């Protein structure tokens, strides 16, 4: 059983609010990822990290930011949420070499 947790599971907020989506893993994985997925659609990589204090932008341009101060924690922040940010956000982590990625349950964000 994978130990990667995302909170909250569901979030409805107003336009202009600042939000942080939490992602934590207890497996000691050095690589972590954030994906954006609309229902029934593909996964778009928006951020990833290969260790503490390292973050990279993914393939999909995103107005969100991430930080990696601790190995187990990889939060994603939106400074000013907009309706276009409405989507599902998936967090994943992966070990060092020749391992698969484990996914959290996701956060379904709705901006009204």
């Amino acid at each position, binding site marked *: 059983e994978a130990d990667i947790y995302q909170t909250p599971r569901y979030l409805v907020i107003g336009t202009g609010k600042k939000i942080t989506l939490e992602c934590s893993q207890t497996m000691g994985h050095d690589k972590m990822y954030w994906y954006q997925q609309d229902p029934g*659609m593909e996964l778009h990589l928006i951020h*990833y990290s290969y260790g503490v204090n390292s973050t990279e932008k*993914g393939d999909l341009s995103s107005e969100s930011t991430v930080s990696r101060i601790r190995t187990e924690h990889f939060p994603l922040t939106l400074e000013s949420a907009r309706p276009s940010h409405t989507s599902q956000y998936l967090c994943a982590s992966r070990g060092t070499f*020749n391992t*698969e*990625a484990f*996914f*959290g349950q*996701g956060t379904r964000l709705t901006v009204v």
Partner: protein
Amino acid sequence: AQSVSQHNHHVILSEAASLELGCNYSYGGTVNLFWYVQYPGQHLQLLLKYFSGDPLVKGIKGFEAEFIKSKFSFNLRKPSVQWSDTAEYFCAVIPSYGNNRLAFGKGNQVVVIP
């Protein structure tokens, strides 16, 4: 950066039919390959993976996939599907060395009719 192509986004078939989903990737070096499944309302789960060795890999629930290096392909198969196989299936690739970008295809929405 590497990319993944999956065709036939929507697949509808009857129980006991055979399923094959195509996956092609673009990357010149050695790669690790994965198939993930997402059942309705659930998180992504690993079906099977390929790192090296035997190009025919077997996963959970009777699924298997074959890595054909010359074709840059990693097609997923199941000889006889069940209603419970209704889900979305994603192919993913990451270089064995170098960048850490785990890239996914667009997915295949599979519906199995009882």
